[in-house]
């Protein structure tokens, strides 16, 4: 009985499991190149491995953040220009609670969770009134207010105004300095759990209605769905995920730049899912890897002026892979499959 369920699961998720295995083994493999045995890597003894772990943690956080944007933009069709606020609330909230108020990590998580729900409700308040591009502009307005708040000098003691939040001491047991491998696995585990939750959500009755809203909201209403609650559900899940990503961001990098509250950071999410493929979920993961590695590689080998090449690459991706990497891959493989089916029909006995 268990066999029947287990093996098809293995088969259909083969690619995912291989990727997962690669990421679990990655720190140890990198350690080998550095001449460190897995045991040394385990006690954070390899510098090279630690560096790669850091890069991977950044990618996992970006992937979480991009996933949350794909849910509202790619699946529900809500174009929000205020998404960076979802992330920044988590990032700043964590920093301030840990530093200024001396909260424990679980208590911080609880507050961030509530804040995540509240900001989804805030965005949800305007949902019935504004649609499409107007929703984008209203959310941009709300996020801009938040951005102005965090850089204001009045809140400086908490947010560090335009310098950014500094001096957060992350909890010792997942400290990025001394316990980086543990933080690496925690972040990876969070990403996997959220990814599985998202996969289930978009295939659930609720998620299917979200897709219907993206396709044709008027018709979804006529079918009898009060679309407001479905959009709100997607916003809430998205907001919580982004806030969680922000929280991990502050733990990994105890400096929060006000940039994460700006429009540029929303565009980062949009860019990642455009690279990976809008409305695919897997695309957010692939996009985050490509985005971060491209940025890192160009900066390292060319310098700051590399952002020009960076931009050119993005334009090329949009021109040549209009559905993103994952989206285009799926389309092509479906076409190839159809081709084989046609061939089979041609020669097969019907």
């Amino acid at each position, binding site marked *: 009985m268990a066999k029947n369920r287990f093996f098809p699961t293995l088969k259909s998720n083969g690619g995912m499991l291989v990727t997962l295995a690669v990421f679990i083994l990655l720190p140890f493999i990198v350690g080998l190149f550095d001449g460190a045995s897995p045991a040394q890597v385990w006690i954070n003894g390899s510098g090279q491995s630690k560096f790669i772990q850091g890069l991977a943690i950044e990618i996992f956080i970006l992937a979480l953040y991009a996933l949350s944007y794909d849910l509202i933009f790619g699946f529900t069709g809500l174009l929000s220009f205020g998404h960076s606020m979802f992330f920044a609330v988590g990032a700043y909230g964590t920093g301030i609670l840990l530093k200024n108020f001396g909260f424990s990590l679980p208590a911080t998580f609880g507050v961030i969770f509530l804040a995540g729900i509240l900001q989804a409700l805030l965005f949800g308040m305007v949902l019935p009134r504004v649609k499409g591009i107007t929703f984008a502009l209203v959310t941009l307005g709300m996020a801009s207010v938040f951005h102005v708040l965090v850089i204001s000098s009045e809140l400086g003691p908490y947010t560090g105004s335009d310098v950014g939040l500094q001096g957060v001491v992350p909890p010792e047991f997942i400290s990025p300095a001394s316990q980086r491998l543990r933080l690496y696995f925690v972040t990876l585990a969070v990403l996997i759990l959220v990814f599985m939750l998202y996969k289930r959500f978009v295939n659930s*009755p609720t998620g299917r209605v979200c897709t219907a809203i993206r396709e044709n909201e008027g018709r979804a*209403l006529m079918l009898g769905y009060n679309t407001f609650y479905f959009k709100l559900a997607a916003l809430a899940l998205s907001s919580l995920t982004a806030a969680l990503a922000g929280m991990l961001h502050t733990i990994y990098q105890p400096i929060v730049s006000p940039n994460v509250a700006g429009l540029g950071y929303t565009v980062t999410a949009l860019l990642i899912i455009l690279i990976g493929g809008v409305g695919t979920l897997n695309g957010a993961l692939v996009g985050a890897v490509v985005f971060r590695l491209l940025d890192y590689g160009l900066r390292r080998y060319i310098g700051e002026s590399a952002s020009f090449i960076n931009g050119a690459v993005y334009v090329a991706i949009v021109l040549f892979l209009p559905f993103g990497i994952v989206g285009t891959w799926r389309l092509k493989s479906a076409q190839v499959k159809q081709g084989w089916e046609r061939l089979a029909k041609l020669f097969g006995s019907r």
Partner: protein
Amino acid sequence: MDSEIIFETVKLRKEFGALVAVDDVSIKVRRNTLHAIIGPNGAGKTTFFNLLSGNIEPTSGQVIYKGRDITHQPVHRTIHFGIGRSFQITNIFPNLTVFENVRLACQALGADNFKFWRAAPAFQKYEQRTWEVLERVGLKDRAFTLARTLPHGDQRKLELGMILAPDPEVLLLDEPTAGMAAEQVPELIALIQEIQRAGDKTVMLVEHNMNVVMSVSDTITVMHLGQVLAEGTPSEIAANKEVQTAYLGGLYELNV
């Protein structure tokens, strides 16, 4: 025999600025009948339907369904009352499969819409109902093609399937045969008649094909410039002099 009124409008009026699209229309629709609404272009038929289904708010007047005032109910409630509505311009989910289009229509009235922790195919009752409906409208073989790739006639059938799915008592069909190939029309009309008779349903129909209207309707309401010009059985309407000049232009010959 059964002359109970299921649907009724009282001085229903809709103004768009200075234009009065629907001008104090009061009609009564009897249960289990096929009630057609005809009229020249711009007579206000589609606006009238939009008022009935709650897509737009009337300027004044009432919509009464089974003795209950539903005038100001939000549009997503309409189907919950048992009123299904199809559109003149095909209105489906283009990038979803035919199956998913109908499945969404089946799921809407259930109590499982927010069970986000279970996969949708696990809800067998909606899956089964979807297959029944697809069988009924003859799209079973096309279940897993994308709705936008269907030929127009099949999209019209899909549209019909999507309102049949929740099994409403009243069907508001806005030109169900619009843009269909002529040879497909009788098939669809036969289907509508069959559904109406077998399922004890009330059908309201906007239709331009006069042969269709005259042959299938129990009652016909003729609208002209937002007002009701005449109402009666097909033979009464065909004999009506006012209708002849306003709509039929004296050119239509009743071929019964």
